[in-house]
Every structure is written in structure tokens, then in C-alpha cells.
């Protein structure tokens, strides 16, 4: 039947599947791993709801100059909700920072000390202004469901760095999922163990099924420990006449790895030994138990800080890909970046909290020497319009938005690609950046040729970058 080796490749376990990687890590690499890797790990920060590039990172003095004047895009604009109002200046002032002199909005000023490590791309374009499609496009490379998340591809291509923690971890906004929910980190046609494992740091049940729930009062550590020995004894008996079936042995070992994960995961999520100054750096407020009902910056920093600190701890312990979400679905009151009504009210706290926590993560990784082989990507489904939509909010802008990257193999202090004077479309409309280019570049830094990491599905060799993708050499160190 299946040898372990053939199992690895044909039963679709992936090429560094958790259960097997520690044994065959070297030969388990996907054939696409042909590039010298500059990074091993990824943190993807995803702002659900569409963060405004022009209020945070993409400085547009023309908007300040023409604030309040009737907007004129020079062409008919198809907005998602109708009724574009006058030009609207950035809600916050911009200052220049660092050696590179990058302009940052005051609301993300905590990132000021990191700008010389960051590379900004201001000419990203999407496909549509629909949240679900936009989110899927940035998360999976396709604007329809049914495709693996980027983390799943990386897990499939590179495998695990640890045999007791998942390879791809997702830290959702604790208030709910963004558009499409788990479809954004699905394994789709890749084996299920490459799907993102959802973790809620600090929650009563941070990882589903890591331990039995309330119904399992009859289960103890001791019953599980002895149980595992009996289980393996009986499984061994069953496997003896079936030695040529590698799956049976793989499943036996999966129970041993599960037991290891039961020890490792709680330790990774335990902040109690983190010094106070580190927690403060991330904006974590252990002293605050009750928060105001209105959205506020300190609370957002606390939430985001906990996710970023958990991310650092998970990365240190061998998790390869951490996806952190800011913002839930489009319910009310808004707890996401979809500021149709009031950019200042909703973007303000989210942006400051994100900046505080993200800056801490960058600095903390740097001081531990981990930033040099960890890529951080900040993204969102699309941008927001340079005009109002009548009131204090901005409509969707899939025509241009911003990403930034930082860390392993990224040239800091750079800006690549500009938007036009309003931040409405790319300055050079014929040469925009697309998510495929971002993904191709990140895979390249991870040592993967994006055109070679493919899986045949329903007659097509599928890859993260579809049939597109160019390396953005300008941001490579």
C-alpha cells in the first residue's frame, strides 16, 4: 500500500507536514524551494473592513489643499455606495520620521521608530470593491472562495519548524471574524492540517479541542496519559500485520504529537513570565479589567498587543506563519475599518492600537534577532476614497491602497509605487502592484519560486499567485 515516502507525496500530506517533518524535514521540502531563503517565518497583519491608506500611510498634501472642494476625479467613478462628496483631507496630520523621512500620520506615530525597517507600497490595486471578494483576494490570491490561504501554502511548501505546535496560526479579532471568516485561512484543496489553527490568546478555550470540555469531567491527565499507552499498545497490535500501510504508523505518532502539543501550546500562550516593560511596550494593560462601551485607543492597543505578543511567543517556538486580524464583520457599532460613517471615530482607536502593538512586535523581534528572518506584512482588502461620501466617512477604494512589509529580506526605509495626487488610483496606472506581486515576493524571500509551488486541482495547476506575480525587486534588501 503506501510507504511513508509515497504517503508524504501522494496522499497529499504536504511537504513538511507536521506529523512527519521532524523525521524528514530535509527531503520533505517542496521542489519549488529553489531560491536561497532570506526568511523562515511570516506575520500577516490583516485590517478587516478596508483601512484608509490616505489617513494612515499615504501622504497626500493635495487633499489638505483642496479639502472641502467638490471632488473631481477626472473620470466617472463607480463607488460602492453612491454619492461621493467633496475632497476630504487626512483626518490626522502627517510628520516625517527616520533616516528615510517617511511621512506617517499622527495616529500611527508609534510606528515612527520602525520606518527605517519598513518598505511601503502605495500602488496596490484590487479587483472589486466588495469586502468578501477583496478579503479573499488578499488572503488567498483569488476573489472567490475555495482556495488555500497564504499561510496554508507556506505550510504546505515549507512544513513545520516545530513538532508540537501548528505551522499556521490565526489570531482572529476576538469580537468576531472578518468577511468570509475561516475561508480566509482555509486549506481548500490542500490537506486539512495546513489550514490555519485558530487561537484566542487569553480566552477560556484558546484552542478548540486541545482539552476536553465540560462534558469530559471523567477525563483526567492521568487517564489520558495511561490511555495513550494502552491506545498505542492496541494500535501497534493492529498495525503489525499491516506494516506496509504508512498511514497507521503516522496516526499512531499523531497521538504522541498531540500529547506534546497539549503541553507546548498553553506554555506558548502563558504571558505570566513576560516582564512588565515588555507588556507595556505592547500596550497590554493587566490593570484594566473593565473598558468603556465606546471604542477607545487604549483598549484597542490592549487587544492588538495581546495578539502581537502571542505571535512573538509562537514564532519563537517554531510556528511558521501567524495571521493577525484587526476588525470583525460589518455589524454595528463598528469594530472594524469599514468607516463609511466616521473615519475619525472608528479608524482612530483601531489605528493607534494597531500601530502601538505592531511597532512593539517589530522592535521586540528585532531585539531578539528574529526580525531578520521574519517577514511582517500589513494589509487590508482595499483602501478608502479621497472624498467623503457625504458625511465624515469614506467609501471603498479598490483602485488603490497601501501595503507595508518589514523584516526578513526586506529593504527598510523604502517606498515603492506611488498613488496619484489624490490617492485615488496608481500614479502609473499601467504598472500597479497586485497581491500576486506581494505574494510572489514573500514566497521568494521564503525560498520558494512562486511559479513552481503548484497543486493540480480540477484540471488546473493551482498556485497562490494564479497566473500572475512579479518579484518586487525594489523592496528586496
Amino acid at each position, binding site marked *: 500500500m503506501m510507504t511513508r515516502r509515497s504517503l508524504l507525496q501522494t496522499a497529499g500530506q504536504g511537504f513538511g507536514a507536521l506529523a512527519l517533518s521532524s523525521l524528514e524535514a530535509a527531503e520533505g521540502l517542496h521542489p519549488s524551494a529553489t531560491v536561497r531563503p532570506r526568511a523562515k517565518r511570516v506575520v500577516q497583519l490583516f485590517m478587516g473592513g478596508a483601512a484608509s491608506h490616505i489617513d494612515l500611510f499615504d501622504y497626500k498634501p493635495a487633499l489638505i489643499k483642496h479639502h472641502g472642494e467638490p471632488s473631481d476625479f477626472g473620470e466617472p467613478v463607480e463607488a460602492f455606495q453612491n454619492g461621493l462628496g467633496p475632497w476630504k483631507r487626512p483626518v490626522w496630520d502627517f510628520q516625517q520620521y527616520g533616516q528615510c523621512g517617511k511621512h506617517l500620520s499622527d495616529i500611527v506615530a508609534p510606528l515612527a521608530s520602525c520606518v527605517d525597517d519598513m518598505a511601503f507600497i502605495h500602488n496596490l490595486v484590487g479587483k472589486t470593491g*466588495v469586502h468578501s471578494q477583496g478579503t479573499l483576494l488578499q488572503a488567498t490570491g483569488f476573489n472567490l472562495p475555495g482556495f488555500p490561504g497564504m499561510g496554508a501554502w507556506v505550510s504546505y511548501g515549507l512544513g513545520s519548524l516545530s513538532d508540537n505546535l501548528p505551522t499556521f496560526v490565526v489570531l482572529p479579532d476576538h469580537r468576531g471574524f472578518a468577511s468570509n471568516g475561516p475561508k480566509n485561512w482555509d486549506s481548500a484543496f490542500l490537506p486539512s492540517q495546513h489550514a490555519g*489553527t485558530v487561537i484566542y490568546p487569553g480566552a477560556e478555550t484558546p484552542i478548540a479541542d486541545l482539552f476536553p470540555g465540560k462534558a469530559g469531567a471523567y477525563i483526567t491527565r492521568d487517564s489520558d496519559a495511561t490511555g495513550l499507552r494502552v491506545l498505542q499498545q492496541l494500535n501497534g497490535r493492529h498495525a503489525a500485520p499491516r506494516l506496509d500501510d504508512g498511514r497507521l504508523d503516522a496516526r499512531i505518532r*499523531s497521538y504522541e504529537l498531540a500529547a506534546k502539543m497539549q503541553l507546548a501550546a498553553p506554555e506558548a500562550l502563558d504571558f505570566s513570565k513576560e516582564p512588565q516593560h515588555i507588556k507595556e511596550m505592547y500596550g497590554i494593560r493587566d490593570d484594566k479589567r473593565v473598558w468603556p462601551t465606546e471604542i477607545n485607543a487604549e483598549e484597542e492597543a490592549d487587544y492588538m498587543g495581546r495578539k502581537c505578543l502571542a505571535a512573538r511567543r509562537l514564532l519563537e517556538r517554531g510556528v511558521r506563519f501567524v495571521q493577525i486580524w484587526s476588525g470583525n464583520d460589518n455589524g454595528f457599532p463598528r469594530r472594524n475599518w469599514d468607516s463609511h460613517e466616521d473615519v475619525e471615530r472608528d479608524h482612530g482607536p483601531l489605528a493607534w492600537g494597531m500601530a502601538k502593538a505592531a511597532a512593539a512586535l517589530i522592535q521586540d523581534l528585532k531585539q531578539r534577532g528574529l526580525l531578520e528572518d521574519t517577514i511582517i506584512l500589513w494589509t487590508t482588502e482595499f483602501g478608502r476614497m479621497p472624498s467623503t461620501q457625504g458625511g465624515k466617512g469614506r467609501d471603498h477604494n479598490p483602485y488603490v491602497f497601501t501595503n507595508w512589509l518589514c523584516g526578513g529580506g526586506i529593504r527598510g526605509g523604502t517606498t515603492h509605487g506611488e498613488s496619484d495626487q489624490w490617492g485615488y488610483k496608481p500614479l502609473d496606472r499601467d504598472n500597479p502592484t497586485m497581491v500576486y506581486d506581494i505574494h510572489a515576493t514573500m514566497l521568494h524571500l521564503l525560498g520558494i519560486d512562486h511559479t513552481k509551488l503548484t497543486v493540480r486541482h480540477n*484540471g488546473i495547476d493551482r498556485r497562490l499567485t494564479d497566473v500572475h506575480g512579479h518579484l518586487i525587486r525594489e523592496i528586496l534588501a
Partner: protein
Amino acid sequence: MNNARCILSMALWGGLPMVGSAGAPVDFVREVRPLFEQHCVKCHGPEKQRGGLRLDVKKAALAGGEEHGPDIIPGDSERSPLVRLIESPDADHRMPKNGPALSGEATALIKRWINEGAVWPDSADATRLGDAADWWSLRPLRKPPVPTPAAGSLRNPVDAFVLERLKKEGLAPGPEADRRTLIRRLSFDLLGLPPSPEAVAAFVDDPDPLAYERMVDRFLESPRYGERWARHWLDVVHYGETHGYDKDKPRPNAWPYRDYVIRSFNEDKPYARFVREQIAGDVLYPGTVDGIVALGFVAAGPWDYIGHAEVPETKTDGKVARHLDRDDMVQNTVGTFCSLTVQCAQCHNHKFDPISMRDYYSLQAVFAAVDRADKPYFEDADLTKRYVTLQWRQKVLSQSLKTLEDEAVKRAGPALAALETRIANAAKAVRGNGVPESGYHSAIAPSPDVEKWVQLDLGRSVQLGEILLAPCYDDYAGIGGGFGFPRRFKIEVGDDPEFRSNLSGLVQLSQEDVPNPGTRPQTFDARGKKGRYLRVTALKLAERKNDFIFALAEIRVSDADGKTASSGAVVTSLDSIESGPRWARKNLLDGHYPGLLSGAKGPENLAGLRADREKMLAAALSGDQRKSLAQVREELTEVAASLGTFPKPNLVYAATVHYGSGAFSGTGPNGGKPREIHMLKRGDVKSTGDLVDPGAVTELGNLFDLPAHFELPAGAGEEARRAALANWIADKKNPLTWRSIVNRVWQYHFGKAMVDTSNDFGRMGGLPSHPELLDWLAATFRDDFEGSWKKLHRLIVTSQTYCQTSLETAGQEAALRGDADNRLLWRQNRRKLEAEAVHDAILQVSGKLRDEMGGPSYQDFVIEKPEHSPHYEYQLHDPEDPACHRRSIYRFIVRSQQQPFMTTMDCADPSMRVDKRNESISPLQALSMMNNDLTVSMAKHFAERVEAESADLESRVARAFELALGRSPAAEERQALADYAANQGLANACRLILNLNEFSFVD
């Protein structure tokens, strides 16, 4: 060919093409083709076909690209786009795009060649496209002769084909598995459930040599069979019960399609009919329920709610959403039934299979009129038709009414507008308070007999005159006036705030249910009563929507002198929903209530205003228009009355001509006229090309003698398109359809298909391991079995090939070395159970599985925030809820947030068309099997069951072992489990058994 190549290289060798003399005709091979080779084929050749054009193949070159039609028009270089492009003065448009322009000499040569008729000798078609027909899956389906292998164990022709092939490789099949193995294998395969220990014993001891065959028949007659095999089908068609994407709303009426599939399997519906029903059952089998609910197939996949319901078709984003929607319908239909990847021809002609871009858009045109929506239906098709027509008539009439009224409004001018404002204000006053503060609203009670009270403290003891209670108005659940007004109540006054004993203070006590007062204020004579406190107690609550409440808009107390005594009173109540301005205790004293404005002045006034309006409108319209208006109104009344006589229609979420409004209007309002489908350059909705007609795949039509161009009668409705496609697919002459389905069935029986890409029989797919067997089965299924699933199953599972052991046996080392994947079937494959089989088996062995069939799906989650993006909270679900102890085919399948346990166990993702499930093994799976609420709670029931069925610990663990694995434990196994149970309890031992490898694998 070699010759042509030779000449070609010689020409290139010379560096410059030789220019023919003016007298002789241009020689394509020597003069023109070198130019193409040098300047064009890099982008328009075998590697790339920019703009769909390639200039290295005659047929392709003369047919032309996507953007200009034929680029070469023989005889007319002036009109040939190719010439325009190479001569363009605009550098941005000129070809070659990234190279120097062609010399004047070269251009002149090409022009002359075209003017001379663009003669391109067939012999010089150097790189001819492969023959489209030259592919195994496209060849006509004929039944090959059954081989007669010299020796070996043959039960039926299946074995003959398999054995013949094994012998050719010098291999031999394995021996037959023992009966214990066979019954467990067959039971999981046909029913998806483990056999009971009693059934195992009976089969093992059955002396009848045909015991196995009788068991096969028994299993195929079991309703569990349809439940098992329907799940395979639902994988392929990506059936789900929520929309997917953002705002992943439930589809509460999707399940009738799932029941249809189960029913079709259990009734052994002929496959051709099964195919036809799912694409066009409404047309081809009118008057049947199956013909309608089968259309759930077309609607099975995901749907972008925002892209349809919030973005109209006129916007780009709306166009993209609808393009993706039709694409899903096309993929689902052609992929499921024909195993073709037509979606690859969306941006360019299919690179490997004979499917053109035009074919792809023709297929989209088949579905151009339908949308995914709830489709009303009755068992009687005529009734359905009348109902839908009436509903539509109602919409049309309402539209006409609106048009006429709009016209009148336009003509009547500002005077009418002013009057409308007055009417609106008056109506609002009659209905509601005219202010946002509605009144007091109690907490919600589950039944009407919960007592609730609200009380005023007047501050001092007052000699009373009259008490007024004003009902609320609220549109919730269509209630309107009298919202929350108690059906029975009492009013008491007194000086004891607790009203412990104060019968003398009773003002009012209703003995019977009071009629709903609407918005009329109710007054009660309280003369002679005195007290500081007044309490209104609801004795029987008003119904809201499946729950009960107490609400009042106002309480006003007048003293004996008629003066208001309640202003400034303190309001208390048993409970209250304090919600924004609308609902608050203090609203009871705010002086606003619906009845206030509808007193003497209100309704009459409103009626009068409305009469004025009628007059004004009538005056504004012409005589004819007035007549039309009257007619429309009369007919609307009639239609409403007719609709009232219909029973409530059934609903199924299916492909339907949708009569909607707003952004998601569907084609119903246009009389079901199909949307125009254009070719889209590079699949981009902004680059529309030719308008296309509905049709199937042209080249295949030629090959199969099944015209792909549907000759539809003029004025044919959209349904004719679907019927034509259904017939094209289900035709006996379409070999793909029959090969595809037997390959799928084979795959589910053996865990591996003969063609391992069940959804792709094209050139990118796999080759059949047993081509003759596949064809023999397909032809037998089509012709001899007339599409009977059950006959096909019986044939396969009674074969020696199926009944082989899965164990490696002595003498098979060569097979293991040469064919480790067992492509040639020298043994049976060991199967890892699918998510559903694991789930159902856990419930069954625990004694909890209920065999209730059909109907709405069970939901093993709690929905939070349903009004926006529903959150499907699985962890809030109670695993003890018996509603969920059904087979997992009846699980409500959510797309965005899939069931975590089932997903970890590799269940099908309803957003993808799954021809073959992933099979993974991971620590996360181990954790789920150990710790998920399902196993943890069911292990307890498993333990309770064996405790009740056996006397002592050893026999209990043995019983559990037999229930789960279909065999008795060996002494060592029994001992180990008994020891463990003794130390850690029987529930832990049962949980351990559910986690054994043997529980999850079938030999």
C-alpha cells in the same frame, strides 16, 4: 513536416527572407512564414497566444483572435486587421509590440500574400494542432469484448478485465477476505455505518453460499444506502446551506434538494433522468416535485450576497458577481456530469482540450436567465405555474399603478406634494405616536400566562376620577395597533406599594380575553377609589411572535376633579426592556400615544385628506388614464383575492427566474428574458466582445454527433436552453457522461478511481488504469442497466476484485514493489473512514443514532447576530441535543464557518467541487477525536449502553469492542482494556476504543 522545417531554417539562415519577384505569386513557406517566425510567433505561437491569435498554425491564424475576429482576410489586405496593426503609425498599437517595425518591403510582401488569397498550403501547416478527437475520453463509447484470462478466479466480467491486466504484468490477485472483513467493508461502503455484532455473527455463520449476494441486495434496499451515497453526490456538486462569502446567510430551503438526491438513490432513478432533472427537470418532467427540487443542483454552490443584493447589475462589481455566479453554474454542470474543465476557456481558448472561449460563453448563456433563490412550488405543476404567474401579475400591476400614480403626481404638481406631506403626517399620527418614544415594554415571556405589572407612584394618596391606558403601535411581526396590550389584565389602586391585600382598590378585572383595542385609548371609571399607587397587571400577555409581552404607550390618571394626577409619578415594573428612546418606563407619562392623534380629528381627517388626494389625482389624469387606473386597481384586488385562495407554497432554494426588487431583481421583471451574454476578453467584464447564443461545446458536438448549437424555436423561453443542454449531456451519444459516472462510482467503492482525476477527463487529467473495463462498465451501465445505480453497485461489489483481502499476502512482494499504489488492484484498498462515517459510527455504537429521514437539517451550532453576518457558534451547541443525533447527511452545512470536527476529519468543503476528498492524518485530528464534545459525550453513552447490555467489566469492554470494530477482542486486548476501565472508568475505555486506528480504518 521535416521538409517544411528544413526550408524554414534555410530561409532564416539567410538572415533575410527572399523576396519573390513581382510576377510570381508570393510563396507562403519561403517568404511569409519566415516573417511570422521572426517577428510574431514569440507572442502569437505555441507558447503564448496573445489576444487569442497564433500565426504558426493555419487554422488558428485564419480564424483569428478574440479581439478582431479573423486577422487575415484573404484577398483583402486593406481590411485585414493584421496589416493595420503592422502598419499602424501609433507606436503603442503597432505590432510587433516590443520589437522594431517591419520593413516596408516585408509589409508589402505580407499584403501581397493576403491579396493573392492568403494561400497557406496544408502541407506547410508545420505545427498542426493535435487532433481534438484523439483522446481516450472523447472517443465513441463502445462495449469492448470481455477478455478470457487463462486462469484465475472470476466471478463476473469485472474480474476478467482486472485479471487480464494483472497477468500481463505478471501479477496475481489476492485471496478473498474473510466474512467478518467483508461485512464491515460492505456495510461502510453501501450504508456508511458499521454492522452490528449480531449482523456480523449471522453473516459469518450463514451456511448459504450466496449469503454475500443476499446481503448486498439487503443493503441496497436499505434507506441507509441513499443516505450514504447522496453524500458522495453532494461533495461533487458542492452543496451547502449558506451562501458563503460575506454575510453568510442561511438557506433554510436548500434541504429539499438533499432529500431529492437521497430519494433518487433509494428509488434507483435511471441516471439519464437524474441528469436531466437537475438541469431542466421543470421543463422535461413537468408536474413532478422531483423535476423542481432537482434544480437545487444548479443553485448548490456559493453565492455572493453583497455582490447581488447590494450591487446592481449595472455596476462593474455587480457584473463581476453575476459573471462568477454563472461561471459556478457552468463549472458545476459540465464538471459534474462530463468531467470537463470548461472554466479554463474563460479568458482564452482551452489550452489542452477542444473547448473554445465562445463555447464557454455559450454555456454561460444557457443559464443567463436564472438566479439562485427560493423557488415556490406546489406538487401540482399547473398550480405552481398559476401561482407564480399571479405573483408576477401582481408585481406588474403594482408597477403600472406606480407609473400611473407617478404620472399623476408629476402633473398635479406642488399642491399634491403638500397634501402628501399632510397625509403622511396624519397617517404617522394614527399609526404611531408621531414621536420615537413608543412606550413601556416588558421583558419577553415564553408563554402568555406569566404575570407582569407596571406601577405608578403618584407621590400622595389621591381621590381618583378616571384612568386611561393607551395601547402601543408597532409594526413588528405585522401587529400594528394594540401591540403588547394584555388580553386580560387588572387595574388596582391603593396605598400599599406591594398590593398585598387591597381588593377594595380594584378598578378593573377582565374575566375574559379582551379584543385587541387597536390604538384606541381605554378609559376606566375610578370614581370612589383612592390611593397613592396604581398598578396595572397583565394576567394574560399579548402574543408578539412565538413569544409574549406586555406593552403600553401611556397611563394617565385623573383625579376626581378631572385634573391629571399622574404627571411626575414614579414608574416601576416587574421588568422592563429599556431600549433607546423607543422603550422605557418613563414613556408611559410622556403624553405621547398613538390614539391621542387619532381621536375625533384623526381618522376622519385622514380619510378626508385621502379623498382630496383621489380627487386631485383624478383631475390630473386624462380620461383614458383614469380608466386605466381604475382597471389596474380592480385587477389588483382580484389578483390579491386569487392569491389568497392558494395554499402556502413549498419552497426550494434552486435555479429560478427570480422576480426580485432592488439590486437583486433577477430577470423575472423582464419576463424571464435571458441576459445577453457576450464573450469577455480575458474574462474581464469591462471588455465585452461578441454576443453569443446558448450552446454546448462545438468540437465535441461534432465528434459526438450531438450538435452543440441548439436549434431553439423562435420565442423559446429560457427553459428551452436548459432542456437542450440537459439532453445534450444525458444523450447516449455523449461518452463523457457515461464514462464520468462509472468512474466516480468505482472510486467510492475502491477508494481510488480508474481515472484518478474524476473531475477532469481532459488532457491535463489522468489516464484510465483499465480503459477497457471503464468502457465496458460505462456501456453496460448505459445500455444493459439503463442507468441503474443499484445494478452497477451489485456488479462491482460482487466481483472477486472487490472481495479481495486488503492485506499483503505472501507472493505479492513484486506487486508491492512495482505497483505500490495498487493501481492494478492486486488487492483491495484499506479505507480510512470519511468524516461522516466516523460521526455516524460514533453515534451508532453509542446507541444514540436516530434513523429519522429527511426534512430540515439539524443545526449543531447556535446562530448569533443573525441580522447581519450570522456567527455560527459551534462551541455553544449542546452535544446532548437529540435533534442532532441524526446521520450527518442531515447536518446543516455552513460555508464560511465549517463544522470544526467534520472539517478536521477532511469533510468536503462546500465551496469547492470535491471529486475526491483529502485524506490527512495530523495531531489536530487526534485532538479532535479525543476531545471534541461529540466523542467525549458519546463515550459516556457508549459506556452506559454496554453497562446495560453486559454484566461485568470484562464483558462490557468486550461488547464495546465488538460494537465498534465488528470482532471480539483478543485476550491481550480484552485484558488491557479491562485494566484501563478498572482504573479510569468505563467511559474512558470507550473513548479509547473510538480512538483506535481500527475504528477509523476498514480493511
